[in-house]
């Protein structure tokens, strides 16, 4: 990840799987738990975060030589807050319903450690193009994680997916999955699955 590295496919895929911000790095868990009670909310939240990631990554990378080291964190926060505010207005303009469902969590993207972390660790050391590609990967990885939770929670908790009925009529929804405890349980379940998967892969790698 050091500066002189060339851009390659890894720049993009890194955030999707190997350094997935949620499952591997355990960052930005507040929205992961709070707005994943439906797949729609999860998607919207993921996209909004991706938007902020890309834009702030781009701008930070552009300004990386201008900003003195002493004030970099403050500058980054201002930049991020700017784009979050923009995302906030954009979502409001696109769909009020989604906006109301996500509530204050859109504005809380500001304090999502993923974004500041990316700005500090990647965008401030790489060119704009690389920063954007990497941010896109990270954002999609985040969105993927959100969807993982959102889909499970919505299907089991309400029998629907993106608002459409997917379970048989007589299906008994398990409402715990749309309630707060369900969020914790589903995330724990995904983490365990992820850990088990990684462990198996490592074992295979050792034996092979």
């Amino acid at each position, binding site marked *: 990840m050091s500066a002189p590295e060339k851009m390659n496919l890894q720049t993009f895929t890194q955030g999707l799987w190997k350094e997935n911000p949620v499952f591997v790095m355990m960052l930005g868990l507040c929205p992961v738990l709070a707005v994943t009670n439906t797949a729609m909310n999860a998607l919207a939240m993921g996209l909004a975060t991706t938007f902020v990631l890309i834009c702030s990554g781009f701008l930070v990378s552009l*300004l990386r030589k*201008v*900003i*003195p*080291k*002493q*004030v970099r964190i*403050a*500058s980054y926060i*201002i*930049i991020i*807050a*700017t*784009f979050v*505010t*923009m995302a906030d*207005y*954009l979502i*409001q*303009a*696109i*769909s*009020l*319903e989604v906006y109301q469902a996500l509530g204050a969590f859109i504005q809380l993207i500001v304090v999502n450690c993923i974004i500041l972390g990316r700005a500090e660790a990647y965008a401030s050391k790489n060119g704009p193009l690389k920063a954007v590609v990497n941010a896109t990967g990270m954002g999609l990885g985040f969105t993927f994680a959100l969807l993982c939770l959102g889909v499970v929670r919505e299907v089991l*908790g*309400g029998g629907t997916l993106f608002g459409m009925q997917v379970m048989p009529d007589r299906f008994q*929804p398990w*409402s715990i999955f*749309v*309630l707060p405890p369900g969020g914790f349980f589903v995330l724990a379940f995904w983490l365990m699955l992820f850990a088990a998967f990684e462990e198996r892969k490592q074992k295979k790698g050792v034996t092979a």
Partner: protein
Amino acid sequence: MSDIAQDAMELPPQPSPFRLVGTLGGIAVLSGLLVVMTYQWTKPAIERNQREALERAVFSVLPGAVRSEPVEMTGQTVFAGFDEADRRIGFALESEARGYQDLVRILYGFDPDRQKIIGMTVLQSTETPGLGDKIIRDPAFHANFEALDVSREVEVVKSGAKTEAWQIDGISGATVSSQAVGQAIRRGAELRERVLAFYRGDQTNRTDQTNLTERGGQP
């Protein structure tokens, strides 16, 4: 002590304070610019969305309404709804009460002529899915609000026990949520009084009403 040492280590390439402030200021200006631009650009769409959402809600509690306009009561805005013939159907009033989990905010249609509630919709609630959230769309529960007498205190009774016009049939198993709706309606009594007073004043003074209609054409 160690702080000083740390500071000393970070110090060497010290840029001038002007540059620091300058950069921050520049970024702030840039950010302000971006935000203001977005704000201006999205403003009409947001306002349209909000108006549409509000109208949808108002129309849903005032059956037959096609147009609404805000009426300023002291401290609170209510919405008057009009049908195709531009006759006033009633007023949409907002109220809230504590539910099972959080506040339950409702909007209900009030017909001052008959002193009845003619429709109700839940604006915001986080009631238990499958149980308390029946107040949002359970048709049997909503049937209570097609003609609910509010000339006297509204009462929530057990499911199926409604005998009087001022009673609300509760949802079995979701007593608290049903009670919250009833409570919200009871709370609105004072506002309804004011609407009534306004309405009576209105009846006697026709011109005032036309005035109001014209004013409320396009907010």
